[in-house]
């Protein structure tokens, strides 16, 4: 502990505010085609020890959100809004505090374990590096802890593994190493950006279970980013669904699966295979494609693909409504409500939505 800054006071006196607070986050990228509006006003909070799953398709802004928190965005990005972590403003941290912040208090697990380890460095060196730099541990102490960590993430004969190079391990084993690296300095917040997308389905479950167990053990908060609602189910306390750089629905996991409000969430739920359904049941795909983030309309971004879309949806961006902090959604005609059912019924009767999407018979309501 040579030059580590003094710990924040909240360590002795836990504050009652949530660990992570993201307020009105906006991120744009300069590109040759124009301004890419990757994130357009994201708000969420995360309590100590809880898991938030951020779900969305490619380009919905979920990874950019994670990278913004980790300060990993390229210099072409422009960021607005505030990110509060503990009693720090993450966007204006002093240099001294920033030196031992990422990797110590906040850590991240990346998507592809095949590329996230340095191919020319031994596992041990990659694991001990951050402990020696941030915690000032000696080589021997750090190595001892590295072996312990590898054992903890379920790697057999860890003492031999630290002498190996990444290419000598399988994908699942490498992801375990990446998780061990993230846990090395006992972070309070772990961001897992699609940690299982690049892995076999059988390995996926092991990695997710491992993350869950470790989280419970260490009492850390976790943001689990995934494009798969199935992955979020049962593992997240809260789920935020992202679409075109906005959180369109945010509520507890149980509430979301029982009674989704946003038509996008509703459509996502319909596209997951259910064990309870008879075999060969057709899944309902979501028509159309995600919007172009350079030319976002001044309207609901989902409207062109939405079966509930009415004239209102094409005129203005729906504000966030619902019960603050409990069940929030950004929709004028929420699913599983009378208003939504009416909107859908009129669209079905007309055979087309206000945005011109042709629809056939479609039953509103959550998946039972």
């Amino acid at each position: 502990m040579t030059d580590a800054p003094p710990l924040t006071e909240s360590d002795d006196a836990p504050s009652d505010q949530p660990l992570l607070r993201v307020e009105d986050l906006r991120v744009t990228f300069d590109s040759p085609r124009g301004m890419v509006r990757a994130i357009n006003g994201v708000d969420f909070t995360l309590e100590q020890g809880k898991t938030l799953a951020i779900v969305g398709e490619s380009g919905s802004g979920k990874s950019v959100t994670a990278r913004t928190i980790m300060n990993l965005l390229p210099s072409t990005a422009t960021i607005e809004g505030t990110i509060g972590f503990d009693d720090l403003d993450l966007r204006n941290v002093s240099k001294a505090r920033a030196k031992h912040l990422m990797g110590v208090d906040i850590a991240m697990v990346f998507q592809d374990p095949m590329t996230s380890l340095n191919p020319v460095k031994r596992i041990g060196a990659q694991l001990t590096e951050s402990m020696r730099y941030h915690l000032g541990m000696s080589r021997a102490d750090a190595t001892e802890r590295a072996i312990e960590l590898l054992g903890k993430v379920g790697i057999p004969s860890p003492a031999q593994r630290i002498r190996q190079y990444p290419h000598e391990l399988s994908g699942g084993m490498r992801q375990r190493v990446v998780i061990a690296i993230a846990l090395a300095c006992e972070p309070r917040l772990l961001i897992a950006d699609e940690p299982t997308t690049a892995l076999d389905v059988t390995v996926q479950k092991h990695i997710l279970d491992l993350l869950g167990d470790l989280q419970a053990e260490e009492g850390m908060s976790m943001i689990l980013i995934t494009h798969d609602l199935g992955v979020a189910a049962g593992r997240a306390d809260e789920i935020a669904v992202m679409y075109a750089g906005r959180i369109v629905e945010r509520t507890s996991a149980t509430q979301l699966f029982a009674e989704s409000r946003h038509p996008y969430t509703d459509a996502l739920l319909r596209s997951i295979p259910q064990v309870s359904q008879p075999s060969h049941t057709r899944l309902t795909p979501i028509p159309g494609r995600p919007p172009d983030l350079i030319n976002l309309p001044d309207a609901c971004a989902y409207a062109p693909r939405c079966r509930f879309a009415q004239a209102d949806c094409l005129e203005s961006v729906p504000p966030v409504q619902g019960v603050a902090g409990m069940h929030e959604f950004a929709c004028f005609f929420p699913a599983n409500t009378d208003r939504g059912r009416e909107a859908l019924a009129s669209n079905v009767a007309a055979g087309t939505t206000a945005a011109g999407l042709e629809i056939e018979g479609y039953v509103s309501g959550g998946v039972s």
Partner: protein
Amino acid sequence: MKYALTRLAQAVVILIVVTFLTFWMQTLLPGNPCIVATGGLTSDELVAKCEVDLKVGENVFVRYADWGTNFISGDLGESYVNGRTVWDDLKQRFPPTGFLFLYSQVVALGVAVPGGIWAAYMAGRKAKRNIPTWLPFAIVGGIVAVSIALGTSVFTLILLAIFATVVIQTLRGGAAQDQLVSASAFFLLSVPVVVLAIVGQWLFAIRWNLYDLSGYTPPSEGLFDHVKSLWLPSVVIGLSLSPVYLRLLRADMIQNLQQDFVNVAKAKGMPPSTILLRHVLRPSTLTLLTVAGLNVAQLVNGAVIVEVLYDVDGMGSYLVSKFLGREFIVVQTLVALIATIFVLANLAVDLFYGVVDPRVRVERSKG
């Protein structure tokens, strides 16, 4: 280990083929090599001795075998013009070239490695200050105009303009720094080494009197005098080599800086210096190593132009004089030496790949 032995065996085969082909091609040249080599200036008995030595008239394989055995046993032949053995000449000619090569590589890498790392690091960054593009041109133009009005020398003018550009680009920061380094590299790349050598000579030996054009001093006569006798040609060769190294390293570094493991290292909270030097530099040196290995040929070829201009009696001038004198027997030996050094150096580079990147070793054990 098995890989190294296979590669060594391959190297031996390559050497035999190369030396045999050059040997055979020489026999295609018209005339008696002994008469051609001496230019008819030496006595008949010397020509006769030469013909016996070289087995002139015999089958090419017999002659090659004879030459080869002599070469391996250390008898590199002799010049029939002055009677000196090639070995004696090498003992005298090789050290200046060897030291010149060593020092110039040190200079080239000393410039290219920090420059390449810095340029690659800055390439992806945003400018610190927004300085409009026309401003540097205006300032440099102003300096030129004022200098002409005041009648300062062209030399001062150029120095001032360079200084102004460096200051402006540094103030800009970010990618402008990369542009500055890359532009300097392009400048060095486009200036022929002969121009650098002459300008360097004029500046340091004549104008500022910081270098004595007295030729090579061996280290045995004092290390200080030795370095003093070689520093300027080393810097000239080093500077002319450095832009190639710099561009290669910069390109590889930029590519590797985009790898996921760099993001992981950033997420671990590692400082930029650790990421650049400990994570990205090593896997980025493969191309640099390859090209440095190819440059080893200079040990025998010598840097002819610089050696001649700086009066260093090294391998370059030796090789040229033997060529001009048509002493193909000596040239043949030198070609064999070049081939040997070249093949060995590149074998070393190949083996070193495995040290730099452990994945290479796996590929080899599979293959």
